[in-house]
């Protein structure tokens, strides 16, 4: 008589943000620091792409809420923080900061490029994503973007690895957890992202897909 030992099925567990895959769910705790649409909500991991910042790979998680809200998130394993980024469309960015200030941000000669928020122009939904004052901390830095999950493959040394080059600027907000990122692509398209950073402890649950 032969006895076959039933092999236990390997079950994925997710211990931290860096281990998320497409299809996983992330539930966030109720936190004042988190904007509406994130605080106390569950998000689905929609995509995993990657940034190459000066040879350092950073996974970029696309998260979607049932309401349609789409944010991206990056994870800092050293600080154990998550930075959520929400895209601000051009009409809105001009409305809340003004064209003149924005022009100063792109001028590398400017020593103290700053952005002051026009508080009255900010919508209720946007308020939690921005703070009143930003200072540029990085100007015209170079990076690459992969529209795929590169966590297994890593960064390639070849030019034809599918990555797309872009230039970016970073701004630090007057509060501890606000920042902004501006990405300028080769075709001239410019994207503005309002960012909110929270500790990973703001995550209530990781629910992995099978």
């Amino acid at each position, binding site marked *: 008589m032969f006895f076959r030992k039933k092999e236990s*099925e390997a*079950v994925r*567990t997710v211990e931290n943000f860096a281990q998320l895959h497409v299809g996983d*769910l992330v539930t966030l705790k109720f936190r004042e620091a988190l904007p509406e649409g994130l605080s106390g909500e569950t998000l689905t991991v929609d995509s995993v792409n990657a940034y190459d910042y000066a040879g350092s790979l950073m996974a970029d998680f696309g998260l979607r809420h049932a309401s349609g809200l789409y944010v991206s998130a990056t994870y800092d394993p050293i600080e154990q923080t998550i930075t959520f980024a929400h895209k601000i469309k051009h009409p809105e960015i001009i409305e809340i900061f003004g064209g003149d200030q924005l022009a100063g941000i792109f001028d590398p000669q400017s020593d103290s490029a700053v952005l002051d928020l026009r508080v009255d122009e900010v919508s209720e939904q946007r308020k939690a994503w921005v703070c009143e004052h930003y200072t540029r901390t990085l100007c015209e830095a170079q990076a690459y973007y992969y529209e795929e999950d590169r966590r297994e493959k890593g960064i390639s040394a070849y030019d034809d690895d599918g990555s797309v080059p872009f230039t970016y600027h970073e701004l630090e907000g007057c509060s501890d957890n606000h920042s902004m990122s501006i990405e300028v692509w080769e075709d001239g398209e410019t994207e503005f992202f309002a960012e909110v950073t929270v500790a990973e402890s703001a995550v209530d649950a990781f629910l992995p897909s099978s």
Partner: protein
Amino acid sequence: MSILKNLFSAIKGNINTAGEAIVDSQAMTILDQEIREAKDGIAKATVSIRNLKAQAIKFDKQSLELAEDIKEYTAKAKGALDQGNEDLARKVAVKIAELTDEKTSADSQAQDLTEQTDRLYKIVKEREASIEKNKIELEKLKTYEQVQKTQVAVAAAMPSNDSGAKRVQRAMDRVKSRQQDVENKMDADKWLADLEGDADLDKALTDAGLSSSGTSADDILSKLKG
């Protein structure tokens, strides 16, 4: 049902604190295995909870879409009424009623599923805390076992009541005795050396006519005459 089954296997891992009782290594192996199975059960339960939550999200999304549809059809119904087209407005109102029923059903399903998943997730968290506690107890038991093994090994290496200890003691005594002999000999040699040194001195004094050692015949006669 599979969620409950996985939770039950997680519950199996619950034990009482063993304290400093005599360690049974077989019991520890079994406990280790139970903790592993419990963790596996929790991992499977978490995936099942995720699937339920995904269903809840699907109903949430459906509800939001239906809300948008209802808003649009309501605007259309008002438009039809403004045009005086009551028949059309009535047909649109029927559609709005259907959508509203669908939305109510979606809301109810989403709420039920959310409540269930929240409840199950709370149970999972409690089990995880219990397993963590059991893991710590198991580590303590492993430490006690190691301490016991060490004590046995030390006792075997250092016998306290048999002839072995006595032999060691006798050997140490012999060494001590030899050491003492050496020291005594060194003292004697020194004494002799000193003695010889004094004899040289005495001779020198005698030669110089300054010796006070020894009694001369003249001294004795002087005393006798006294």
